[in-house]
């Protein structure tokens, strides 16, 4: 989609640059003139929030890396050195650890927004898949980063997760020792995890660029799910309209981020990770960070290790198949009465799995986790494909403009009356 305003270089330098590398007009087209639907709600601000968080994580992370020692004998103490002696060290570390959590919170809200408004449907399938790739890379980065402080949970999470690969028939054990750089989690593991934890975020940056590129080709979806027909009438330029709306949303999100970082920095952490890693002592309950809990619950719900691992990966990857699993022609849940119910049931299933992922896998917890894991896949594989057969969608507005006009009409009547 191209916007209405055209970039014209004003200074001599800008004209010089424009002839050689039209980066200024590219930026203008992408972040100033880019047409954005007028009717977007605040759920559409998470793209900006996530971009902000990615940069925040890289900036805090690079400084932390300058003071961190990826050596099993020194790692735990080097974190405490950061907390005690490095200028702004405690702030940087708490900001980075809580930043990861808020990054995931934002990405989950972003994804649920996509699900609710059918943002993955034609022509945004590839945009969605790139998003799932980013999500998978984020999960890898989060896991790798959690190992670095070399606490008990770091060590045992690394042991549990790398051990999953040993479930692969024939080559499983070879893959596991290749990942570990040995036969158990040890110094080579910590070293490569540090290297990869530093590397993957930059791969994320590259995929984010593709994600934004794809978005700027198709244009944004909007709460009605009806494609923009009249750019002039139904959209506003990204700057200043979206920039300031996004800036406000980032401001609110930052307040939450600051609250977590400054006042409850250890709320989302596990106390055991303040105990240095000890290969000879297994914690009573090994639990991952909260953002992995639903998937962890699915893994443990299945009694067979290989099937459990398959279910774990399937639970993440199935999200990428959404454009083809959801057969409804209507995008937005606003006009899908049944989907709307199932959407909230699905949210509840995910929250329920998250709760169960933190509980010991026994008794009623295990039974519930099995039921909810089944329902999780049922939603994707049965409900979504079959729903259009049963559902009678409510009428969609003729256009974005019509929807805006209908929305403001009652207000005007009230004002006149």
């Amino acid at each position, binding site marked *: 989609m191209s916007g209405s305003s055209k970039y014209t270089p004003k200074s001599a330098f800008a004209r010089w640059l424009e002839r050689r590398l039209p980066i200024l007009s590219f930026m203008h087209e992408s972040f100033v003139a880019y047409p954005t639907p*007028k*009717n977007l709600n605040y759920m559409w601000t998470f793209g900006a929030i996530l971009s902000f968080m990615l940069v925040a994580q890289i900036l805090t992370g690079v400084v932390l890396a300058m003071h961190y020692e990826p050596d099993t004998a020194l790692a735990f*103490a080097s974190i*405490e050195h950061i*907390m*005690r002696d490095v200028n702004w060290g*405690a*702030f940087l570390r*708490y900001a980075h650890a809580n930043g990861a959590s808020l990054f995931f919170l934002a990405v989950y809200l972003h994804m649920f927004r996509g699900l609710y408004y059918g943002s993955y449907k034609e022509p945004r399938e590839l945009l969605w898949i790139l998003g799932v790739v980013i999500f998978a890379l984020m999960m890898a980065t989060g896991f790798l980063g959690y190992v670095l402080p070399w606490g008990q949970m770091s060590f045992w999470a690394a042991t549990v997760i790398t051990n999953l690969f040993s479930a692969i028939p024939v080559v499983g054990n070879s893959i596991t020792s290749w990942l570990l750089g040995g036969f158990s989690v040890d110094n080579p593991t910590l070293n490569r995890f540090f290297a990869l934890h530093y590397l993957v975020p930059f791969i994320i940056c590259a995929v984010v660029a593709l994600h934004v590129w794809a978005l700027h080709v198709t244009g944004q979806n909007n709460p009605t799910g009806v494609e923009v027909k009249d750019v002039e009438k139904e959209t*506003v330029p990204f700057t*200043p*309209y979206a920039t*300031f*709306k996004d*800036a*406000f949303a980032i*401001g*609110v999100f930052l*307040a939450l981020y*600051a*609250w*977590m*970082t*400054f*006042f*409850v*920095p*250890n*709320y989302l952490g596990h*106390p*055991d990770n*303040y*105990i240095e890693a000890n290969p000879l002592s297994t914690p*009573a309950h090994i639990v991952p960070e909260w953002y992995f809990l639903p998937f962890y619950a699915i893994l443990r719900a299945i009694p067979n290790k290989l099937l459990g691992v398959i279910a774990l990966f399937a639970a993440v990857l199935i999200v990428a198949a959404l454009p083809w699993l959801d057969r409804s022609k209507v995008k937005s849940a606003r006009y899908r009465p*049944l989907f709307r*119910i*199932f959407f909230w*049931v699905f949210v*509840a*299933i995910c929250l*329920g799995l998250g709760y*169960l992922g933190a*509980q010991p896998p026994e*008794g*009623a*917890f295990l*039974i*519930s986790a099995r*039921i*909810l894991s089944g*329902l999780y896949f049922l939603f994707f594989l049965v*409900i979504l494909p079959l*729903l259009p*057969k*049963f*559902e*009678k969608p409510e009428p969609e507005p003729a256009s974005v403009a019509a929807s*805006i*006009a209908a929305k*403001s009409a009652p207000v005007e009547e009230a004002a006149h009356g």
Partner: protein
Amino acid sequence: MANRASSHWWAFLLSAAFALAALTPQAGLCAEGSGGEKKPEPEERPLAFPWSFAGVMGKYDQDQLRRGFKVYREVCSNCHSMQLVAFRSLGEPGGPGYSEAEVKSIAASYKIKDGPNDKGDYFERPGRPSDYFPPPFANEQAARAQLNGAYPPDMSVLAKARGYHRGFPTFLFDALPGLSYQEAGVDYIASLLQGYRDAPADVKLPDGQYYNVYMPGRRLGMVPPLSDGVVTYDDKTPQTVEQYAKDVAAFLMWTAEPHLDRRKSLGRGVLAFLVVFAALLYLVKREIWSTVEH
């Protein structure tokens, strides 16, 4: 029409199944509590103390940190190391606030292994402010040999390495402004130190194990470390186990989180700024959008 009714029925069925699944864990918990003869009684929930450093306005009580340091020095440090804490931090702002001279003399009262010297020998010298608290035992094996097999944990970050399950839905409220709770570890430590009781008749403890109602499993390898009057306070603070427990727990919170005061005061400023900043951005946004129907 018939289609629509049947699809509603489907949705209802699925919601009912989900509600059932959500309810079962609680039923399971009840069943667990009543059964299991061989399982030890579950530990008691730690007491909640009114810490000066809790909450948004929280900061350490300097006198309490000094008293707690005295308890650590005279009692705990006989068995527990604190290897990540340097003497110099005792004089840093937001801590016990000892003067430079006091820190020097505290450091000098410890013997630090150093070397090799010009002759290639290792030697002991008085501590300097830049040194870290030396461990009471040379290594884990030495500690276990002398302490009936027990290995006392390092105390540097102990107050953050301990905690207890807050349960649903309490854990959700623990994150909220006004209700925030980050003191599980320090509450647990202060409770544990006053949690020794005579073991009930049906509980047989092996040698070197003590009955403590706050310890998971109720068995603890630590000799009851405190008794009334065991540490002499310079001021009029009561010299009781309860007071010692609170003071040393507060001190351990400080060793685990030495920059808490600064973190919170900085946080208040940052948060106040962000609230105003976000409000201003909202006004700008509203002004920009005021002419656009959306």
